[in-house]
């Protein structure tokens, strides 16, 4: 138990979703995902993948709003899906989300400041109004706003960048340990994007927070991330420190993903490798072996029917048969 005190442990999480006419047939939207995050070390952990890879489902499971079918999430030793009453309130205080679309995150008919007062009263349990105001102003100042600027206003009076700052400030009120950020900048313009990313960086450095940053945008991931987990069709294919993964992507999928990023530099135009369009998603989810077998240029017989185990290659954990073959060849 003492060991568990300082970890967020995601243990063998599997989530099944139905498909077909009545949703009776099931496929694994997440397949046996395990991740450990040390709560003692402030860091930005990136979860990256394409649309339909299951990254948002994973985040929702960590948030506690979706229950995994198999496996559990342990926060400081407690199974978060079994918390009740005040314990579940405690977990909400420790882990706060920010969402993708700032325009949709707020009720358009409700004043922005009421969200702040509600959070301080209901989750932080602060009854004294002056103390609440002090806390709210402090949180807003951290993101470059102030209570005077937002009080009495409605969501439409703010720009997307400001609304996203407001969501971050609201999450900060409870002084959480972990911030779950689901594509927080994908709806924003390039000039505002950097501002939000810099705030996330500040949160890590100044408030020692842990941020789980879910994205499909690998350039912003590298800009702020410390380590990265790449998810493909529900399986974790590669996990390691971000600089190592970017320098030398081990898994063929990571390699394809990194090479397909378009860069804002016209001189690189001719250098992108050719790319194969993805086929039907569902078919790939149902492959018994490596989900990437269908698109992988070096897929072999074994890839189709058996999921490879995790292999530690130079500090990065990779799920690919390529490395196992390599080891066997080497020893023989």
């Amino acid at each position, binding site marked *: 138990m003492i060991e568990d005190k300082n970890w967020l442990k995601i243990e063998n999480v599997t989530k099944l979703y139905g498909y077909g006419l009545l949703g009776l047939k099931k496929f694994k939207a997440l397949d046996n995902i395990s991740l450990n995050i040390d709560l003692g070390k402030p860091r930005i952990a990136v979860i990256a993948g394409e649309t339909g890879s299951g990254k948002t489902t994973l985040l929702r499971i960590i948030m506690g709003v979706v229950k995994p079918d198999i496996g559990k999430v342990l926060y400081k030793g407690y199974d978060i899906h079994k918390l009740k009453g005040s314990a579940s309130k405690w977990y909400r205080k420790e882990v706060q989300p920010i969402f993708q679309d700032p325009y949709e995150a707020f009720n358009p008919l409700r004043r922005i400041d009421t969200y702040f007062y509600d959070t301080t009263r209901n989750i932080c349990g602060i009854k004294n109004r002056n103390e609440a105001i002090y806390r709210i102003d402090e949180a807003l100042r951290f993101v470059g706003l102030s209570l005077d600027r937002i009080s009495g206003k409605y969501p439409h009076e703010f720009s997307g960048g400001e609304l996203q700052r407001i969501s971050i400030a609201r999450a900060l009120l409870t002084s959480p340990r972990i911030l779950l950020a689901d594509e927080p900048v994908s709806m924003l313009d390039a000039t505002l994007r*950097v*501002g939000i990313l810099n705030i996330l960086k500040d949160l890590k450095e100044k408030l020692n927070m842990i941020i789980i940053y879910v994205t499909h945008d690998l350039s912003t991931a590298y800009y702020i991330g410390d380590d990265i987990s790449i998810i493909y069709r529900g399986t974790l294919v590669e996990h390691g420190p971000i600089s190592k993964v970017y320098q030398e992507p081990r898994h063929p999928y990571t390699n394809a993903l990194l090479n397909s990023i*378009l860069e804002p530099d016209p001189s690189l*135009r001719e250098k992108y490798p050719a790319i*194969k369009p993805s086929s039907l998603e569902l078919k790939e989810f149902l492959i018994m072996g490596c989900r990437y077998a269908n698109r992988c240029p070096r897929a072999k017989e074994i890839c189709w029917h058996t999921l490879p185990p995790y292999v530690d290659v130079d500090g990065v954990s990779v799920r690919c048969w390529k490395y196992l073959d390599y080891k066997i060849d080497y020893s023989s």
Partner: protein
Amino acid sequence: MSLDILTVNNLDGGYEVFIGNRRVFVHAVDDVSLTLHDNEVLGVAGESGCGKSTLAKMVYGGIIPPLVVRSGSISLVTRGGEVLEMNKLDIDTIRRKIWWIEISYIPQNSMNVLNPLKRIKDQFIGVFKYHNIEMDKNEIIKYLKDTLTTLSLPPEVINAYPHQLSGGMRQRVVIALSLLFNPRIVLADEPTTAVDVVTQRVILSLLKEWRENNKSSFILISHDMSVHAYMDNRIAIMYAGNIVELGNTFDVFREPLHPYTKALIESLIRKGDKSIRKGLAGQPPDLINPPPGCRFHPRCPYAINICRAKEPPTTSLDKDRYVRCWLYANPR
């Protein structure tokens, strides 16, 4: 030299809306001049709400209230060499003679524009009927299959309903639909915003290949600068309804001149870059009541007195390089 197939002169317009009894004019396109050469990609970049899509609608001739054009002209040179004043034609002529055949439009959010109750092939056949193209049904199907194969879609999709296809495939179907009659000009409004990085690369490279084979011209509207870096020959940067800079893509990326373009290029995050970047403070102006003088002056670090009082003229620097800024207005 290359031929100008589309010329937009001092186009000015916006949305006329009534709030209660008060008439409000949202000045979304302010004095825009552009030329589109034969066989080129002209990019239009800018933040959300800067008038990019409004400009596209005006060029396309889809002027339906509340959108109004106050002044300016759009002239189109047809395949037969005829010069047409687009904004003097009535909507029915535009629909039958120009849309699909001369100019075609790939709408924003194009994966959701297909009729969910019709099979893909029926949606295509409707287009043939509308344009009075006499063709045998079998011939149409064969033609369709060919068109779909050029976008690497399996020919079976013609019998599918839209919900049976993934987002990326639907998007490619809509693109195929727009390119059906080999139009000379394609207006692509954010063709890849709603899809992830890998699908984006696939779609863009298919569009690129199609354009090179057919020697068509594209007007590509996107807020994503990496898309412009990958596709464009020339790029126009829009800010709050004005085109602030226009030039060869390589020149604009290498040496941005307008302060807004500078900030935009500097705020871009490149893969494998962790150096701290600064975003642009402030937010785009309200188009109902734009600031006097240059619309960028409240956010501009180089603003001088004249910027606050008078609108800057469009200054031509080199061949095909235009800047709308007082800093360049009087070349010494």
